[in-house]
Structure formats: structure tokens, C-alpha cells
């Protein structure tokens, strides 16, 4: 019985490991062609997603090293969903890829790392999960094998990751030195806000800031995003950020709860700077991947506002926002991916007159941009406003005013792309792009998510109900 419970507790990780092994055997066998592999993987990913809805209970196993709870299950399912969508919309690009199995194996290893990190109950496990997720990811950045920019992006990511890991480890070692333990609950119990602990925490926070690309630790993001294959850019901006934000919540609330005053100011100040800088830099970007790099930096700032509230509603708002963000951002990346894989064009100017040549794609892109900008009735409106509403609970009105006014800046640059697509003429428009059914399915899913989630108020209640049992 206990063994069964353990399997249930780790079902996300076990399922993913199985998936990796299946792909590995097929690779060794060597007979499966790409289309079959993609279809099989997508099918298994759907099953994997469905698995997440059953038997989620709060459990601690391996002496508290590995924890699981309904909220963690929801978070993992959100990440699973994102990976499924990425795999669906990258169909065109994947089909032609020489190393498809490796791509999937690395992708799922990285996801597995995030799962372990989410479930971790002590700093060692946490660090292990983090590295398991980062190292395959840097390899993935290099998967546009013919492009130099892709290698450059991988190199930049591995350097900045190594650097941030070093800082993180330094922080962890100081915390260990101060408290004499690496278990989350033990640390939480023995924290006394001594200067050494605060120093360790600040370094720890900095490591996170790198991964979440919080200003001023955001400089790697744009270059890495631009060079990496679109699928990986999407993964970096949605899955990686989402997972880091989830973990951030656990770590701040459950482990460093006693340092709340310290991190409240760190969060609010860096949120204000991150939103403003991200937005200002996004205005001038021509390459769409760079554009979304900066826009997602700004979005992270909004997430930080909700995290600073330290309430269950704040947690629920973050999860809800990231769920919406998965649909919204991946809709945009799906369009970029399709257009990039068929025409190789990725700049804003290439999208001139897109509505005339490809009305469907332009519409989906517009919906995604409106949702990112927080325009109702798109779901992004609710996501963003709930982040601000939970942030306002602490009464830091200066931050709410800065964040709200930043909505205006972000509206400007999102609308710029809408104008380009709908109103501008293009002497050499993109040709009519044919959608495969797989890509079409992913677009439909994303659009459905964008349009429906805001009206399904129950979703938020369900998340909140689980967030209560953090």
C-alpha cells in the first residue's frame, strides 16, 4: 500500500520518465520516422496531462525530501499543458528535424527537472531539480543546428545559468551555515533573521532573479530568446518562467516566511523596476522573439506584485495568471513558429499586412496580443487585474499605480503590432500559409483558452481552494 502511495505521489515524474524511456528505446530501435514519433509523443503527452487530474493528495515521502499536494499537481498540469501545446504547434519544425528523439528526450528531462524542483522538500533536491532542468535546456537552445545564433544563444544561457547557479549555491551554503540544515521545514523553524541569513537569502533571491529574468538580471533573456528555436523560446518564456514562479512562491512563503519584511521590499521594488524596464525596452524591438522576451520580463514583474501579497488569493492569482499566460503566450509563439518555419521571417515588418494574406493567423495573433495587454473580454484581462488586486491587499499603492500606468505602455507596443498586421500595406506580403491539422488544433486550444477562461470564474475558485493547502 505504501509503495502504491509513493508511486501515486510521484506519478507525474514517473510518467515523464516512462515517456523518456519509450523515446529512448524507439531511438535505439531506429525504425520510427519523425511523423510517427511526433504523433506518438503528442498522444502520450495528452495521456500524461489527463493523468494529472486523478489521485492528488498531500504527501511527504523520502523523509520530507519530496512533497506533493493538489496545488503542486495543478501547477505541474499547467506545465504539462504548456509542453503539449509547444509540441503541437512546433509540428512543422519538428517534422524536418534530424534529431527529433533527442529533442523530445531533452525537453522532457528539463520538464522532469522542473517537476522535481517543484516537489522538492529541501535545498539539495531543489538544486538538483534546477540543474536537471537547466542543462538540457541549454542543449535545446542549440537545436537550430544550422544557425550560429542558436549556438550563441545556448552558450549565453549556459554561462548565465552557471553564474546564477553559483550565486544560488553560495546563498544556500550561507543559509546552511546559519541554520545547520537544508530541509525546508527545518530552515523555516530555525530562521532568526540574523544578518548572515539575510545575506544568504539575498544571494538565493538573486539566483532566482536570474532565472526569472528580473531586472537587473535580465540581460541574457533577449539574446537567448532570439537565437533559440521558437519552440524553445516558448518553453523558456512560459514553462521555465512559470515553474520558477511557482517554486518562488513555495520557497518564499514556506521556507523564508520569517524574512517576509525583507522579501516584501525586494519583491515590490524589483517588480516596479522590472515592469518599467521590460516595457520600455519592448517598445523598440523589431525581432518578435526579442519583443516577447521583453514583454515576458514585464509580465514577470506583475507576477512578483501578486507574490508580494503573501496571501492565498495571491498564490491563486499567480497560478491562474500563468494558466492564462500559457494559452496566451503560446498562441503568439505558435503563430511566430508557423510563420518562421515556413518563411523564415521573424521581424515586425514581415508581419505588415498579415491580415490581408493570412486573416486567421493575424486574428489569433491579435487575440493573443490583446490578452497579453489585458484587454477584455480576453482572459489576460482577468489574469492581470487579479494579480494587481491581490497585490493591492498589502496597501502598497505606489506600486499598483506604477503597474497600472505601465499597462498603458504595454498597450502601446502590443497595439503597434496589431496596427502593423491590420492596417499597414506590404509590397511583398507573406504567402498564404497552410496549417497542418496538428498546428491548427494547438491554435484552437489556445484561442479557446483565451476566450473562455475569463468567463469560467469557477476555475479560479478551484485553484484558490487548493492554494489554501499550500
Amino acid at each position, binding site marked *: 500500500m505504501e509503495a502504491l502511495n509513493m508511486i501515486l505521489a510521484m506519478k507525474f515524474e514517473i510518467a515523464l520518465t516512462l515517456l523518456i524511456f519509450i523515446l529512448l528505446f524507439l531511438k535505439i530501435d531506429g525504425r520510427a520516422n519523425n511523423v510517427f514519433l511526433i504523433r506518438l509523443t503528442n498522444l502520450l503527452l495528452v495521456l500524461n496531462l489527463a493523468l494529472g487530474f486523478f489521485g492528488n493528495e498531500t504527501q511527504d515521502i523520502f523523509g520530507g525530501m519530496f512533497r506533493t499536494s493538489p496545488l503542486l499537481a495543478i501547477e505541474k498540469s499547467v506545465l504539462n499543458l504548456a509542453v503539449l501545446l509547444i509540441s503541437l504547434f512546433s509540428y512543422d519544425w519538428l517534422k524536418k528535424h534530424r534529431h527529433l528523439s533527442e529533442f523530445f528526450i531533452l525537453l522532457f528531462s528539463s520538464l522532469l527537472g522542473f517537476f522535481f524542483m517543484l516537489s522538492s522538500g529541501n535545498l539539495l533536491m531543489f538544486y538538483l531539480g534546477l540543474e536537471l532542468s537547466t542543462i538540457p535546456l541549454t542543449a535545446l537552445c542549440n537545436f537550430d543546428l544550422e544557425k550560429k545564433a542558436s549556438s550563441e544563444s545556448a552558450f549565453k544561457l549556459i554561462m548565465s545559468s552557471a553564474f546564477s547557479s553559483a550565486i544560488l549555491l553560495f546563498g544556500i551554503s550561507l543559509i546552511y551555515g546559519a541554520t545547520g540544515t537544508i530541509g525546508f521545514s527545518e530552515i523555516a523553524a530555525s530562521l532568526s533573521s540574523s544578518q548572515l541569513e539575510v545575506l544568504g537569502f539575498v544571494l538565493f533571491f538573486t539566483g532566482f532573479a536570474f532565472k526569472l529574468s528580473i531586472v537587473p538580471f535580465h540581460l541574457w533573456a533577449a539574446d537567448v530568446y532570439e537565437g533559440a528555436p521558437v519552440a524553445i523560446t516558448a518553453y523558456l518564456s512560459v514553462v521555465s518562467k512559470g515553474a520558477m514562479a511557482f517554486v518562488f512562491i513555495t520557497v518564499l512563503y514556506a521556507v523564508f516566511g520569517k524574512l517576509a519584511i525583507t522579501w516584501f521590499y525586494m519583491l515590490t521594488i524589483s517588480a516596479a523596476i522590472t515592469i518599467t524596464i521590460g516595457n520600455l525596452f519592448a517598445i523598440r524591438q523589431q525581432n518578435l522573439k526579442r519583443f516577447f522576451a521583453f514583454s515576458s520580463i514585464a509580465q514577470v514583474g506583475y507576477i512578483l506584485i501578486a507574490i508580494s501579497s503573501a496571501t492565498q488569493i495571491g498564490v491563486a492569482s499567480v497560478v491562474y495568471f500563468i494558466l492564462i499566460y500559457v494559452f496566451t503566450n503560446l498562441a503568439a509563439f505558435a503563430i511566430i513558429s508557423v510563420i518562421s518555419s515556413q518563411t523564415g521571417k521573424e521581424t515586425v515588418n514581415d508581419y505588415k499586412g498579415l491580415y490581408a494574406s493570412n486573416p486567421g493567423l493575424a486574428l489569433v495573433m491579435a487575440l493573443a496580443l490583446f490578452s497579453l495587454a489585458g484587454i477584455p473580454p480576453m482572459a489576460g*484581462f482577468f489574469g492581470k*487585474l487579479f494579480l494587481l*488586486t491581490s497585490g493591492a491587499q498589502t496597501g502598497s499603492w505606489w506600486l499598483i499605480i506604477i503597474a497600472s500606468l505601465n499597462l*498603458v505602455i504595454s498597450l502601446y507596443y502590443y*497595439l503597434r503590432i496589431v496596427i502593423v498586421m491590420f492596417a499597414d500595406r506590404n509590397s511583398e506580403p507573406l504567402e498564404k500559409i497552410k496549417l497542418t491539422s496538428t498546428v491548427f488544433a494547438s491554435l484552437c486550444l489556445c484561442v479557446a483558452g483565451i476566450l473562455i477562461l475569463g468567463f469560467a*470564474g469557477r476555475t479560479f*475558485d478551484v485553484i484558490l481552494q487548493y492554494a489554501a493547502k499550500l
Partner: protein
Amino acid sequence: MNLSLLILLPVLTSLAILVVRDAKQVRVVALLGSLLQLALVGWLTLAYVNARNAGAAAQFLFEQRTVWFSAFNIQYYVGVDGISVAMIGLTALVVLAGVLVSWKVEKMTKEYFFLLLFLAAGAYGFFMSLDLFVMFFFLEVAVIPKFLLIAIWGSGRKEYSANKLALMLMGGSALVFVGLLAIFFYNSSPTFDLVALSQSHIPLAVQHKFFPLLFLGFGVFGALFPFHTWVPDGHSSAPTAASMFLAGISMKLGGYGCLRVATYLMPEAAHEYQWIIILLSAIAILYGAFATMMQTDLKYINAYSSVSHCGFVLLGIGMLSKTAITGAVMQMVSHGLMTALFFAAIGMLYERTHTRIVAQMGGLLKITPFIGTVFFIAGLCSLGLPGLSAFPAEMTVFMGSWQNPDRWYRLATIAACASIVVTAVYILRALGAVMWGELRIADLGLRNENANEVSFGDAEWNEKLAAVILIAGIVLIGVAPFLLQKLVDGGVQEIAQQLTRMAF
């Protein structure tokens, strides 16, 4: 009466527009949809009046409530009082007229009508929502269609104007949102419920800090000086129907929000900041009027005069007395109809002459008697001719304002009154130059001096119908202002009571 029908109907119409095939069907669907809306609104008005006559005493009628996000206490909560009914009626008239004058739109017809009707859904929702979050939702729903209408179908510096409009309105709504959050969080059981909030007492400290945000935020929509600058650019670049919607509906969102949310919920702060509101609206009235005198483009003329006329709305609200607020509400309805009519007439002329510059036109009454007449009616209404809607509305604002014994407020009232003279100057000058005198052939690109051979004719059925609908509204209010006054009386009474109850 199910109020949600009024939101569903335009949404369904716009969805139907997406489904049908060619431009002709799109127009027919849009027209049917807006006719149905008008019928529904007529029914709503009747039902409302009947219910009131039968003694329904509740503040809001036909209420509907459904929980939306229970965690934030957000409810889909709608209901109407007389003020809402009046604004909804205005919306329905302007939407129908807007659809009619857009009959000839060839470029992306489907998308155009989709956006028009979607905007209408936002406006209806805004005017009937009693939950502040839902109200904010609809306020923002109404912004982006305007942006797209101007950016895609506009003329002149359309991208600049569209951006300016969207960003300024979004900035306004960002301020509104902060204000709403402050209202939401001030007590221990946070709520967005307008009715519940009006019965509780928002602490003075909260009012003091956040009333300016709310009033400014809505004020941007209502062309509060100095945040009126989107009005001239937006109007002049917008296609005809979008101009009509902007002036007829969107600017009213601001006035309604200032009244219903800022003033109603924060009466003490309204008294505290009263002098600023009055000062700014008096400046807007005078500045708008004088700025209009310098304009050469018909659309700019009407846009700046809108700034001036919307100043009356804010002045009436700022005076915080029952009569003045009644006047403000009447002025909102009257100005909505009148400006829509004016923009429709300008659009019709522009379609024919391809110019909006006053100096390039002349003697058009000879060729286009119908449009000319419409133009005159709109102009005369604008300068406050008795018998048309603006006269009773502005008169009521002045009466209400004068009741306030403060010397400076009376001075502001006198200044506002004086602006009518300026209005008369610019309106009559423009009317005369465009309609009378010699037919200015060369500038109009007509073929020769014989008026019989001009390349365009008078208004067509759709344009005539649109004009007649709007004129009917204007004349009705002008001749029988007591109908409108009686309709809004209950709602205004409630707000006025709130203002006195809280202050003294």
C-alpha cells in the same frame, strides 16, 4: 425585462456578422440587429416607466445577479435606474444611426460592423452594471474597437490619433482601476457591489486620496481639461460612424462614471474637490469654445465644440446640486444625439465633396438640401436654440449652477453662459460658409459652373433615415424636456440625497 438580453443581442449580432458571407448580408444583419436593439430599448423604457408608475420604489429595477469570481466577491450584477435607461436609449439611437450612415463602407465591411456592434455591447453593459468590476470590464471592452476603427478605417494621421486615443483612455482606465481597488479594499469584507458601497461610508482618508484618481480617470473619457486632447484628433481621424460613437457614446461613459462612481460613492471628497472640477470644466467650456473658432476643418470644429459642451456635463456634476446634475444628465443625452447628428452630416458632405475644410465649401444647400437642413438643425441645436434638445439641457445646468451661492461658482457659471455667444459665432460662421453663398465649384472638384451637372446628389435613404432618427430624438427632448427629466428624476434624486446626506 431581462437586461442581459441587451448585452447578448449586440454580441450575437456581431457573431452573426462574422458568419454571413458577403457585404450585403453583413449590412442587413447589422441593421436588423440594431433595429432589434432599439425595439428592445423601447420596450425597456416602457417597462421601466410602467414599473415606476405602478409604484416600484427600488433604486434599481430589473436587477440580475450571478456570482462570477467568488474569491474577489465579483458578481455579474446589472440593473437600471432612470439615468441608465436614458443613456441606454441614447446608445441604441446612435448605434442605429451609425450603422445606417456606414452603409457604403466597402473596406473590410464585415470587420467594420463587427466592431461597431461589439462597441455597442460594451456601452450597454457599462450603463447597466452595478458591480464596479463588471463596469470596468465593459469600460475597457469599449476602448479597443474604437482604436481599431480609427486605425484601420480612419483618415489623415490615423495611427497617431488611434494611438493617442487608446493610450489616453487606457491611462484613464488605469487610474479608475486603482481607485476601484481602493474602494474595494477599504473595509474588511471587500466588495465591488455599487449598491452596498453606496450604503456604507467610505473613510474620509480613502476618499481624499482616491477620489481624484477616479474622477480624473473617468474624466479622461469625458474630455476633462487638460485631458481632452484625444478628442479632436480621435474624432477627426475616425470614420463617420466611429466619430458618432465616440462623441455620442464613449464620451458619455466618462460623464456617467464620474457621476455614478466617483461622486456618488465619495460624496465628501466630491465636496472637497468641487472647486477643482468646476474650475477645470469652466476652462474646458471656454477653451473649447475659443479653440473651435480657430478651426478650419469641420470635424475639428465639432470635436472642439464637443469639448466645450462636455464641459457643461462636468460643470453640472461638479455643482453637486440636484438641478445641476439633472441638467448634466440631460446634456449628456442631448449632446450625444446632437454631435452624432453633426458628425453624420459632416460625414455625408465629406463623402460627396471629399473635403472637410470650411474654406473649400460653399453654397451646398443648393445641391444637397436635405443634408444642408440636417446640418442646420445640428448647428442650431449646438448653439442652444429653444425647441431643440440643447436648450433645456444647458438651461437646467445653468439654473442648477446659479443656485450655488458661492461667488466664484457663479462667476464660473457666467463664464460658461458667455461661451454660448462664442458658440453662436463659430456655428453660424461655419453654417453660412458651407451652406450659403456661391457654389464653390473649383475646390469641390465639380465639372463646371452649372449646379445641375455636379457629380453628386442629395442624401440617400439610409442617410435620411439616420438623420431623421437622431432629429426625432433632439426635437422630442427639445419640445418635451419634462419626459426626459421625469425619467431621470429618481436616479438624480438618489445621487443628490447621497451628496447632502453625507456632507452635512
